[in-house]
C-alpha cells in the first residue's frame, strides 16, 4: 500500500539505525519522549528499541486521550447513558475505560443504550434516524479529532437536529507538554511530536519548546522508518549544536497547520478554564468546551452530571507512566492485577496506552526488569 510499505522498508530502517549509532556519544544517554500514543504503539509493535543503541532511551508520553481521561468523566458519561431515552455513542476504546462505577460496557450490560461509532458524524446520523431518542456523543481526543466534532456540531445546528448533543472532552497538546517541561528534575532531552495533531495545529505551535525550554522537537509520521528518521534528526541537531522544531512529516504537515480546521474548532468550541488529567492533575486551559452559541447541543448543560473527582486506585501508577517517570513494567500491578482483559489503569485500556503496548509486544523482552519488580 502506497504511503505505508515504503516506510516499513527493512533496509532503510537498518541504514537509519546505523546512522543513529554514529550520532550518539558512547556512555551519554539521550532521553527522547514520544508524546503520541500512536508512536508508542509503533515503537513496541515493530521492536524499534531493539534497533537503537543503549545511549538512546525512549520515554512514553501522555498522548493517548483515553489514558488521560479521569475516572469522574467516565462516571459522568455513564450518568448520561443511564438517562431515560438516551443513546450514548462513542469510540470503541472508551467503552472499556474503568470509572468509579465500572465501564460504559458494564453500563451497557445493565441496560444503558451505549453504541460504538467511528465518527461523531455517525452519531449525528443516529440522531437523524432515531428521532424519538436523544443521541449524545462522548467526544474525546486531541486536536486531530476536535475538527470532526466541531463539524458535527456545526452541521447539527445548521440542520436543526433537536435530539443530538456532545459531551465534550477534547484536550489540547500544549498544556500537558508545558506541565512535563516544568516538572522539577525533568529527564527528557528531546521530543518526537505527534504527526496528525500537527496536521491540524502546524509545526509552529511547538516553537515554545526550543525557545522557552531549550529542547528540540521533530514532528514525526507513524511508520517505523519515520520514527527512526525523526530520532536521527533529533540527534543530528545535538551534534550540530542546533535546538529547533523540525518536520519529518513533510508529506502532510505544514508550519501553519490546517487553518480551516482550526477555524471550525474555534467556531464550535472554546478553551475551558481548566481540566483534570490523569497523572498530570488539573491543567489550566487544557481542554475544550462547547461554545455558548451551541448551548443546545452541549450535554453538560442538558444533563445533571455527578462531576465527581475520583482518586485512581492506589496500586495504579498510570500517572508516573504517563509522565515518563517509570516504565510500564515497574508498576506493581502490571500484567498481574492489571491486564488488557481487565484493566485497572487507563494505560492498559487502549492499545496505544504505554502499558497495553508493552504488554502486547514488549513484555517477553524484559525478563530482567520484570523479575526485579516482582522481587
Amino acid at each position, binding site marked *: 500500500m502506497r504511503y505505508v510499505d515504503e516506510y516499513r522498508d527493512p533496509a532503510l530502517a537498518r541504514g537509519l539505525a546505523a546512522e543513529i549509532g554514529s550520532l550518539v556519544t558512547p556512555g551519554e544517554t539521550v532521553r527522547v519522549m514520544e508524546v503520541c500514543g500512536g508512536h508508542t504503539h509503533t515503537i513496541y509493535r515493530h521492536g524499534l528499541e531493539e534497533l537503537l543503541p543503549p545511549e538512546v532511551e525512549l520515554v512514553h508520553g501522555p498522548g493517548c486521550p483515553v489514558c488521560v481521561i479521569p475516572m469522574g468523566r467516565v462516571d459522568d458519561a455513564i450518568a448520561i447513558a443511564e438517562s431515560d431515552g438516551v443513546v450514548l455513542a462513542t469510540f470503541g476504546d472508551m467503552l472499556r475505560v474503568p470509572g468509579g462505577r465500572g465501564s460504559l460496557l458494564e453500563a451497557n450490560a445493565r441496560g444503558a443504550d451505549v453504541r460504538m461509532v467511528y*465518527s461523531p458524524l455517525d452519531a449525528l446520523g443516529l440522531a437523524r434516524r432515531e428521532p424519538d431518542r436523544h443521541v449524545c456523543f462522548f467526544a474525546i481526543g486531541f486536536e486531530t479529532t476536535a475538527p470532526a466534532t466541531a463539524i458535527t456540531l456545526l452541521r447539527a445546528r445548521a440542520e436543526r437536529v433537536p435530539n443530538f448533543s456532545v459531551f465534550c472532552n477534547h484536550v489540547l497538546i500544549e498544556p500537558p507538554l508545558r506541565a512535563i517541561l516544568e516538572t522539577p528534575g525533568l529527564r527528557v532531552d528531546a521530543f518526537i511530536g505527534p504527526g496528525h495533531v500537527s496536521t491540524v495545529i502546524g509545526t509552529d505551535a511547538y516553537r515554545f519548546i526550543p525557545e522557552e525550554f531549550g529542547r528540540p522537537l521533530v514532528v514525526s509520521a507513524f511508520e517505523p522508518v519515520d520514527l527512526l528518521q525523526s530520532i536521527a534528526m533529533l540527534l543530528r541537531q545535538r551534534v550540530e549544536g542546533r535546538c529547533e522544531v523540525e518536520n519529518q512529516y513533510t508529506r502532510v504537515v505544514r508550519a501553519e497547520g490546517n487553518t480551516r480546521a482550526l477555524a471550525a474548532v474555534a467556531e464550535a468550541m472554546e478553551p475551558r478554564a481548566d481540566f483534570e488529567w490523569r497523572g498530570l492533575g488539573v491543567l489550566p486551559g487544557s481542554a475544550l468546551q462547547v461554545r455558548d452559541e451551541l448551548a443546545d447541543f452541549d450535554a453538560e448543560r442538558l444533563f445533571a452530571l455527578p462531576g465527581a473527582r475520583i482518586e485512581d486506585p492506589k496500586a495504579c501508577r498510570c500517572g508516573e507512566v504517563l509522565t515518563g517517570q517509570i516504565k510500564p513494567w515497574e508498576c506493581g500491578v502490571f500484567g498481574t492485577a492489571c491486564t488488557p482483559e481487565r484493566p485497572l489503569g487507563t494505560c492498559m485500556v487502549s492499545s496505544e496506552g504505554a502499558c497495553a503496548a508493552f504488554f502486547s509486544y514488549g513484555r517477553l523482552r524484559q525478563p530482567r526488569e520484570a523479575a526485579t519488580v516482582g522481587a
Partner: protein
Amino acid sequence: MTIDAVRCVTCGDVAVAARVRSVDGVEAVVEVGHAVERVAVDLVPDARPGDVLLCHAGIALERLDSETEA
C-alpha cells in the same frame, strides 16, 4: 498490506490515506485499501476525484503531498 485493525483512531492519532472516488457537496466517497467509505470534506473543500486525502474519524483533514493519483 492493511492498516492495523487493532488500533484506536483517537488514541493512536491515526489517520489513513484514502483516494477520492467521487465528491458530492461536502461528502466524498473514498477508497481505503479495498474498502469504500464516505468522509466529510468540509476542511478540504476543493477535493476532487483522484486526490489522496488524509482521513480521521470520518473527515478529511488534509490532502497528502498536494498530489493527485491517476
